[in-house]
């Protein structure tokens, strides 16, 4: 019944909707030519509004000298320093860390083997060995310490929150909103105030990382809990399980593999914060990247960036393997092997505490400088070879697409844009789209950076479209062909964790400082996550469904467009949403390469104290843009399909 009414609605509404949208856009363009330049709310680079000044004045009001913050800071600080002492820094009166490189490699490989497989154990040993050969052992261990601390703290917060959001629909709605905020609010906005609460150094860096990295774990834990088959939960309840028993004996064990995906994402996010956190003196590879970039030394920056990527890939593969491990308990043989391995690890650790060669990574093979030279050469070659061509592409896209779109958004009176946005949201999503759109538009005006918001919106829209198109293409490809998936993943991981600062320099050389460069950077950063989600969604389409389509003689394209994409729609909606959030997360980085507007406002607010309030307002504007676009797309996706029975709270 439900599906019938749904599709009827769909058939009737669809053509009308597109006609209305078409008319709306035509009216807008017509009105633009009439009203151009009125009420555009332009605010100059150094100008501020009363609201901005108020924010600036009250920046330091929150939380100074607060005992709670102090306690958190001390706790986190001790934790990070402990890890650093163990892994990275000379400690406890010894010139080397507690565990030297041999011990770390052995321990890491052992853990990878115990929780994953011997394949990832090999990968772990090779990866860590590689960063050692790069001459970045200590920096890598500092980064690893900070990452471990941030990830563990994230999980400490995220898993309970995720469980709560998984069990309660209301908590889920609130959580979604807060998580969007945490992920889109630019780090630069809270980096400086964080140092006020938590002082400069590892603690503040860790906490900044936690804010950015915890959301995926919350989201995926909630998602995992919500997708445990209802029957298993009912079975447990029908046997008289208490809520606690259902949670610990059914929901959590059955959520394991999805929760691990969340942990995985959290690790990736944490590693992508390494360089940003270096701005408040977080130790490790981020420092190397930033210092190298002061002199535009792409080679050295790339070398350090590569170490981050390698660590990311190792952590990713190990957690993935741990998540995919079947439910079996260990066989006797394996237990014996594990025991023997543990002894081996202890021996290795003892070595690494006793002998210099096992404690300090030998620096005879300086792979790092060679990598740096090669990276520099390649960068130069690319710049020289493609330089002229890329400028042409940039100008074509900018003049053909970006400038008209931006002119329409920035040149129209704010009330006209707001009216169009609300109307669009209403057509696409009914009142569920219209109300948030109206609220967000109103708040955007209130932030005082409307004009900059519209410039950023234009770039964001374009970038998101590119991300979705590329992500869909790659994702479908990888989802359909396993081989493609295996070799595309490392590239995607690199795109996600290679610090943007590293590839910004070549991008600047190729495209100059421009909005296009910022869009390109955002695309590189956001395509991986979109691709991964799409690929996973396509892979999850039941084989039988695809076979059914093939059996009636569908072409590949028909299978993709009529079966795989529609069936994977939920994944695709999520992919669009995440793509958008990742694009927005790069707005500030975009501001550093010529996108101006909100990104620049945020960066300037971070650097110039009198612009702090404006920076914060701009950061909020980014969040508002995110919420606005997200709600409209979500609402549009929702009315497309008819919701069957709404699943109630789980327990």
């Amino acid at each position, binding site marked *: 019944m439900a599906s019938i009414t749904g599709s009827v609605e769909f058939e009737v509404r669809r053509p009308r909707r597109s006609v209305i949208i078409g008319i709306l856009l035509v009216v807008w363009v017509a009105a633009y030519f009439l009203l151009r330049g009125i009420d555009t709310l332009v605010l*100059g*680079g*150094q100008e501020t509004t009363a609201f901005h000044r108020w924010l600036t004045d009250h920046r330091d009001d929150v939380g100074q000298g607060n005992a709670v913050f102090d306690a958190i800071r001390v706790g986190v600080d001790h934790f990070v320093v402990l890890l650093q002492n163990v892994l990275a820094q*000379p400690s406890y009166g*010894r*010139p*080397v860390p507690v565990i030297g490189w041999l011990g770390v490699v052995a321990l890491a490989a052992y853990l990878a083997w115990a929780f994953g497989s011997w394949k990832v154990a090999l990968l772990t040993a090779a990866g860590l060995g590689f960063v050692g050969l790069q001459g970045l052992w200590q920096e890598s261990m500092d980064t690893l310490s900070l990452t471990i601390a941030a990830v563990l703290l994230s999980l400490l917060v995220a898993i309970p929150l995720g469980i709560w959001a998984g069990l309660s629909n209301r908590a889920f709605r609130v959580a979604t909103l807060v998580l969007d905020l945490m992920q889109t609010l630019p780090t630069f906005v809270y980096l*400086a105030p964080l*140092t*006020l609460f938590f*002082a*400069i*150094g590892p603690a503040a860096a860790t906490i900044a990382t936690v804010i950015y990295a915890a959301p995926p774990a919350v989201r995926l834990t909630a998602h995992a809990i919500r997708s445990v088959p209802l029957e298993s939960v009912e079975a447990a309840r029908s046997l008289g399980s208490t809520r606690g028993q259902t949670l610990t004996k059914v929901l959590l064990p059955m959520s394991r593999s999805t929760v691990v995906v969340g942990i995985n994402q959290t690790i990736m996010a944490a590693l992508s914060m390494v360089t940003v956190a*270096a*701005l*408040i*003196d977080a130790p490790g590879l981020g*420092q190397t990247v*930033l*210092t190298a*970039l*002061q*002199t*535009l030394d792409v080679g050295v920056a790339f070398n350090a960036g590569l170490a981050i990527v390698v660590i990311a890939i190792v952590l990713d593969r190990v957690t993935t393997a741990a998540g995919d491990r079947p439910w079996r308990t260990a066989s006797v*043989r394996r237990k*014996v092997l594990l025991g*023997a*391995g543990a002894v*081996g690890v202890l*021996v290795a650790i003892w*070595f690494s505490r*006793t*002998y*210099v*060669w096992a*404690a300090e990574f030998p620096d005879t093979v300086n792979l790092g400088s060679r990598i740096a030279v090669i990276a520099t050469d390649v960068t130069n070659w690319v710049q020289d070879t493609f*330089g002229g061509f890329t400028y042409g592409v940039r100008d074509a896209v*900018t*003049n053909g697409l970006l*400038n008209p779109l931006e002119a329409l958004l920035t040149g129209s009176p704010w009330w006209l844009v707001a009216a169009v946005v609300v109307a669009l949201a209403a057509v696409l999503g009914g009142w569920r789209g219209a109300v948030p759109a109206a609220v967000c538009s109103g708040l955007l005006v209130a932030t005082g950076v409307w004009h900059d918001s519209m410039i950023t919106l234009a770039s964001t829209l374009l970038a998101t479209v590119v991300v979705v198109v590329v992500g869909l293409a790659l994702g479908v490809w990888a989802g359909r062909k396993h081989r493609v998936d295996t070799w595309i993943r490392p590239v995607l991981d690199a795109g996600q964790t290679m610090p943007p600062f590293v590839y*910004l*320099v070549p991008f*600047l*050389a190729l495209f*100059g*400082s*421009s*909005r296009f460069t910022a869009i390109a950077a955002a695309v590189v950063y956001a395509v991986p996550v979109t691709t991964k989600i799409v690929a996973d969604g396509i892979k999850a389409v039941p084989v039988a469904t695809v076979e059914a389509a093939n059996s009636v003689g569908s072409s590949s394209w028909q299978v993709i467009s009529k079966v795989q994409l529609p069936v994977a729609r939920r994944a695709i909606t999520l992919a669009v949403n995440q793509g958008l959030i990742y694009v927005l997360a790069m707005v500030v980085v975009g*501001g*550093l*390469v*010529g*996108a*101006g507007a909100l990104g*620049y406002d945020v*960066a*300037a607010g971070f*650097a*110039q*104290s009198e612009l702090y309030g404006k920076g914060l307002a701009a950061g909020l504007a980014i969040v508002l843009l995110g919420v606005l676009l997200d709600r409209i797309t979500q609402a549009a996706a929702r009315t497309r399909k008819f919701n069957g029975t709404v699943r109630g709270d789980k327990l």
Partner: protein
Amino acid sequence: MNKLRYAGVLTAAALALAGCGGEKVGADEPAASGAKDCGTFNLAVNPWVGYEANAAVVGYVASKDLGCTVVKKNLKEEISWQGFGTGEVDAVLENWGHEDLKKKYIEDQKVAVETGSTGVKGVIGWYVPPWMAAKYPDITDWKNLNKYAAQFKTSESGGKGQLLDGDPSYVTNDEALVKNLSLNYKVVQSGSETALIQAFRDAEKNKKPLLAYFYEPQWFFNELKLVKIDLPPYKSGCDVDPAKVACDYPPYDLDKVVSKKFADSGSPAYDLVKNFQWTNEDQNAVARMIAVDKLTPDAAAEKWVKDNQSKVDTWLGKK
């Protein structure tokens, strides 16, 4: 059971290695820093090479001659100033103006004090790449800028000439200047120092026109001698009203700021910071070693100190 055997072999191999051993990890020698009463010296390092040169030399001297434990913290300017209050930062060694921060931390919160000039003069202005100055000699006069505006057009400048602005860290008057000097230009934010330097490199290499905001001293001048445009000369007070500015940027006397606590501590490092003074050439020399020759800051500092021992002696009050 194959794996078991391998594990056994590996363990045996490891034990065998224990026999050949190697150099053993020794206990840390007692820190030399305890000898003199300097203690820990927390030095903020702001993210540009000129600053790093200052920090390299001061840090080197403090640890070598005064026995301080020097802790360098890589921080953005504003965050360094915050550190004065919390005691995490003792000194900032190259401050570009920042009247707002001075007001907040020196006048209002009274947690920081000024300790005089570094001797380095900062210049801010508009620059063109050398090839342009050579090809169009009259471009360095701002009155001729409109003549060349069409050349500076880009996809970002909306039909006008592009004036590429800088790092978000710096206060600029460029929008007001363009307006008040009736220039047919649009200010475009490059967004970072990196972007500016890359833009100049590209412009010089491919003979592209570029007009951009820049500043000296800067290690990049070692690579490319940018040519400054002469704006209407700065007169005291001509920049009081930011909206009406129509004159060049004032020359900056780059100075040092330390935390109040540090100043009152009687640490010999404080005297070093107070006495520290050198020239643009000195700084450029060290910056060059760091940025172009890829020396570590310490190595660069050591080299420079060897050649300039007399200056260092002055800072240490030995003369």
